[in-house]
């Protein structure tokens, strides 16, 4: 699958989802209590969920919310990794060791339990949108260390390169060197890292959601919707319950493909 195809398909999905969400009529929270687990109809194209909410709107919202939040979390995570890795590479040995030790420490944390603890200590009246933002922020805060190690090694190699020595000899300061020379050279490392983190964060949110600890109701999320697959009784009632998992897997494949092609 080419990068162009993946990019086009993802853009198309996002556009369609945006139109569905913006279309006047059903919202993701509107409950049609007389149409519980309804099948496909002109009113509800892919039926309704077990609370009578339009599945199409919910899946579209989850797709947009997941992509935007995961991309934002990935950008934060990659930025932290770039910052920590670069600072470590351009710092004296002991500082670099401390920073790398810190990132190793983060890598060893049992992130799922940590997420559960942090999530449960949040204020109870945090709105669903806040809960989504906080969930992805936590993911971002925990997702940078592996990338930081890669950036550190890359920056360390670049630090001793001929053109860096040339730049330093020309009187450029460290900040200027990093901005003008280092970061552009680290781009091939940071962009795939960013693209790889997006599907990883989507999956992490889905895992949390299936534990009932992700994005709060009534905001739809992949994890919350995958809960429908938990019971064979639900599976027997409508084939549309498979729509979120099919779409999630498709999005993940497209994102992986994009990262691989880059």
């Amino acid at each position, binding site marked *: 699958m080419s990068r162009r195809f993946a990019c086009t398909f993802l853009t198309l999905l996002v556009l369609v989802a945006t139109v569905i969400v913006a279309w006047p009529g059903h919202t993701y929270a509107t409950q049609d209590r007389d149409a519980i687990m309804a099948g496909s109809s002109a009113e509800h194209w892919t039926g309704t969920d077990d609370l009578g909410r339009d599945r199409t709107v919910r899946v579209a919202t989850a797709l947009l919310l997941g992509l935007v939040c995961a991309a934002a979390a990935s950008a934060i995570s990659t930025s932290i990794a770039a910052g920590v890795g670069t600072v470590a590479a351009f710092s004296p040995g002991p500082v670099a060791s401390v920073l790398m030790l810190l990132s190793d420490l983060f890598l060893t944390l049992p992130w799922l339990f940590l997420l559960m603890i942090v999530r449960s200590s949040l204020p109870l009246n945090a709105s669903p949108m806040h809960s989504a933002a906080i969930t992805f922020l936590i993911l971002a805060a925990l997702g940078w260390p592996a990338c930081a190690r890669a950036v550190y090694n890359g920056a360390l190699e670049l630090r001793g390169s001929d053109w860096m020595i040339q730049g330093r000899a020309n009187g450029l300061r460290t900040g200027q060197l990093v901005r003008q020379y280092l970061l552009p050279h680290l781009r091939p490392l940071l962009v795939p890292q960013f693209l790889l983190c997006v599907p990883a964060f989507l999956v992490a949110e889905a895992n949390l959601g299936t534990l009932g600890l992700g994005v709060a*109701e009534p905001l739809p999320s992949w994890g919350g919707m995958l809960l429908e697959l938990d019971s064979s009784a639900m599976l027997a009632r409508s084939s549309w319950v498979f729509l979120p998992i099919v779409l999630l897997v498709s999005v993940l494949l497209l994102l992986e493909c994009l990262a691989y092609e880059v």
Partner: protein
Amino acid sequence: MRSIRLLLIGAALVASIAGEPSRSQEVARIPGELVWAIRYDPKTFDPAKVDEQASETIRFFTGGVLLRFDPRSQQPEPELAESWSISPDGRTVSFRIRNGLHFSDGTDLTSRDVAWSLRRVLSPATAAPVAEEFINPQQVTVEALDPQHVIVHLPQRVIGIGKVFDEIAIEPADRPSEGKVTSGAFTVFEYKQGQYVRMKANPNYWKHDATGVRLPYATGIRLDILSNREQEIARFQNGSYDLIESLPPEDFSLLAQKDPGAVRDLGPSLNTEQLWFNQSSHAALPDFEKKWFENRSFRVAISDAIHRSDLAKIAYDGHATPAYDFISPANTMWHSTHLQIPRQDLASAIRMLASAGFVTKGGRLYDATGHAVNFSILTNSGNRARQKMATLIQQDMAALGIDVTVVTLDFPELIERLMHKMDYEACLLGLSNVDPDPNAMANLWRSSSPNHQWNPSEATPSTTWEAQIDKDMDTQAGSPNPLERKRAIDDVQQIVSDQQPFIYLVYPNLLIAVSPRLAGAEPTVFQPGIVWNVTSMRLQGHQP
């Protein structure tokens, strides 16, 4: 080459897994044996030390008892005791033991065995959980007058004392056997941890049917230890299991489509699902919020705005009954039939809030001091029905202009917030009621109790109506007169309905499955449910 090696490793792995005996592998049925599943292993087979459901199930089948609670009359009926009586002061309980009783090993059962079993349960060395029900077990004395008469002397009257004897198995004196030698219908025969418990019929069981055939009809019982509900349903469908004691609504509906004759909705169970607001003075909440929750009009308005029939229809697939009271209508002896229930009407809820000083501006509700009304509903993760109810209530509250946040937490964290930190606004949970006697719920209603959830451990009742509940609970606990007890409990029901400290939502219905091959089943919502008359149940085609 690499892929061939991987394939070989994979094949070896599959072979090794297939070669291992599976924990959930089915065991062959002995002819005439009844088979079903329980969720987990019994912690003990010693009938005196039972403190959880699985062990209690084993004790019910194996333990012969003096009296047995009859779900039809809701009264304890004579079992090993031929007759029994309580003295007018309630401090002396006398039993006359049946003639010609034997244990499963053929030895005689006399008053000596009865007295020994009772003393063993009362002894602090046994640490029997049931001893607590005597209130002061160390001062209880047991006397065997002759081989047929036993007298129990109590230091004080104990309400519902008859039911306590339903929990004490009579074992051979000085020979406790952990269910192997019993006076009940079955004896423990084989136990494989994590797999099954097998019991066989007691050949000396005292009970006979009307035609003189010795009970039980079944040759034995096998209880598989199986926590996977999908597997349980599959095995019921293929005929390996004869019954399912409790089904979730969605599985019930699925099974009803495939085999409508096998499933039964027994109507409201004794259990309740309820919502309550944190009214504790120690609550980590702003004062204006505490004032909302302490305001009766606010609580009643919230109750009025909740569409309970929708909760029953959507969250329980129609297999629940709207609830307004802490005593289920299934508990006919104690449920108040003349209760004045809230109106369940949005207009009356809005009027009620307006009368309490709340105002609606731009679709949002504000209190008299200008604070927007919003609160969170806490419930436990993993319970889909509760999460659905909370989300439905969220929409019901939106109609009042109240912004509700639904928060699901894992159970330990939820209990921590509820019982220790008091850090929550509203909570949606359920209560399982095993004992139909409301005295068993005294710790929920007494204001001094730590389980008085909306405001635990009050030094003195903070409201006059809580003081009245305390008084009524004292009356029902101390009165020997059943009518007086009923009046006191009716009063508590009316106060709870008026004040709504707990906003009762639904009584989940008891949903069961019984194989059409199983004859004699007369299911009831009272414990132990379907199998209360297991001695009269048999597989069709099997002759005892």
